[in-house]
């Protein structure tokens, strides 16, 4: 059953949702410069949820994630992350950006990068110790990069780097994971491995929010899906993203229906258009 998205109606329900949510947004509008990227977004993410945020390019998926990470202030609306203002509980949040804009020639190894995940936990004056080294080793094991511990990051492939940065998040043992396109552009095996890890974290009670434009992955491997195209279109159990109506309203002109199949064509260009558009039917 799919519910079209409305604001949390009943006061009591809204309060309940907010109290039990690791991430809570109400009427959030924000963007860059003077251009809004997301408008009037409501979302409540209960603790332990494995949530995928889907939408076409330019829909505001990354923006939404940055608001949750406390990296982008909301122009309107209210945001609560782990019970506080976003960024306040940043030590318990791990944000893994899509394309890490780091200097790959930087003199650090995979192990060094993962250890950095421990720094905010340690705080100033304390040096990493045995516990930290063990957590780093465990994190590298989970992402299957243990043998590359001493490899300088510039010598790693794209997928390997992605796994190292996920390991950094794992080593911090956060309550909330915010991952921007974690499974995009990597080989299927790594994709499966990463989803296994995220699923395991969710089972442990951690909240995982990931953006993706892989709808099959969203439908099959995530618990809940939130579909966004500047505005929140729908959020509910993962299967909703397979509903043609939801797809049409989220992907609009990116949709192509062929026979009894619906294809989503997600091109690489940014669109400012809302989710209206032609749906092409071919008999």
């Amino acid at each position: 059953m799919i519910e079209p998205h409305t604001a949390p109606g009943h006061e009591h329900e809204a309060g309940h949702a907010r109290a039990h949510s690791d991430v809570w947004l109400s009427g959030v509008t924000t963007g860059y410069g003077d251009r809004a990227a997301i408008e009037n977004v409501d979302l409540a993410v209960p603790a332990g949820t494995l949530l995928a945020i889907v939408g076409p390019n330019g829909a505001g998926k990354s923006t939404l994630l940055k608001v949750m990470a406390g990296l982008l202030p909301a122009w309107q609306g209210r945001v609560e992350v782990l019970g506080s203002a976003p960024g306040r509980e940043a030590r318990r949040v791990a944000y893994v950006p899509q394309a890490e804009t780091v200097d790959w020639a930087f003199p650090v190894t995979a192990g060094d990068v993962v250890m950095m995940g421990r720094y905010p936990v340690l705080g100033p004056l304390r040096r990493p110790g045995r516990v930290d080294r063990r957590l780093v080793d465990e994190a590298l094991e989970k992402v299957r990069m243990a043998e590359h511990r001493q490899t300088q990051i510039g010598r790693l492939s794209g997928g390997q780097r992605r796994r190292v940065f996920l390991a950094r998040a794992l080593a911090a043992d956060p309550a909330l994971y915010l991952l921007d396109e974690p499974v995009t552009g990597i080989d299927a095996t790594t994709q499966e491995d990463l989803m296994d890890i995220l699923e395991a974290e969710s089972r442990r009670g951690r909240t995982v929010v990931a953006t993706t434009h892989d709808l099959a992955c969203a439908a099959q491997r995530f618990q809940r899906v939130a579909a966004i195209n500047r505005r929140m279109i729908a959020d509910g159990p993962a299967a909703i993203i397979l509903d043609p109506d939801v797809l049409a309203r989220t992907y609009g002109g990116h949709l192509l229906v062929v026979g009894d199949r619906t294809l989503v064509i997600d091109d690489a260009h940014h669109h400012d258009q809302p989710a209206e558009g032609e749906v092409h039917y071919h008999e």
Partner: protein
Amino acid sequence: MDALFEPLSFQFFQRALVASVLAGVVCAIIGSYVVLKGLAFIGDALAHATFPGVVAAFIFGGPYVIGGGIAAFLAAISIGWISRRAHLRVDTAIGVVFAGTFALGILLYSAIQGFVGELLGFLVGNVLAIGADDLAGLLVIGAIVMVIVAALWKELLYATFDPLGAAASGLPVGALEYLFLGLVALTIVLSLQAVGIILVVAMLVTPAATAQLLTVRFARLIVLATLIGATTAVVGLYLSYWLDVASGATIVLVQTSVFLVALLLSPRSGLLRRPRAAPSNHLEGSSGAGP
């Protein structure tokens, strides 16, 4: 052996040695972050910006360290402010402040009568003339810088390597940036008498750059840079004593020579090594090229 011990019998040389090694060590530690953050230009600008402060302190008979420090601090603030408010690139703001402050220093200097001999000392260092009180002040400054780095080295490293990731995990990246610029200003002021305004950027950059050619781990880089900074300071000072030439410049030239040797011989990036095929990658297509 006599060559080593003879100069040490002079108190001025002992002080000069301590001051030079201190400058070499602190510059190398801060310089390790400077080269990775790409702050060499702003470092040079802050060094030149100390000039009006040093001359003003000279005119009023105050400690040049305070005058230079205030001038560097004001310059750093100006650079940030101009860049943000005028929406200019930081590079541009640095260029403007760099030249303007130095010109102010020259103007102030030209207003003084009869102290021409001191000018060269400000610009290229005069470590052999350092007094005991001056040295005590430098040791205090050096201790402050090293204690702060010892406390925050990993936070500074994370903020340098991945400011976005560091900010998202709760590190006060903006505050750390300002703090670091303050440490750069302190380091510059500490090194002024050893190598002077014009050459201090070399002390910041060269040992760390040499270390970068020789290691892929930051922890080793900072240790290596420090060893290089200390050793070249000693070697340079002794050489300048026996050759009777400018000490600051000799130290810097020793550092540059060490860098060139490392550049030629480094197993990783040395110019003499045979070009090898790029490391093959078994898992995915791309070979470690940048984003």
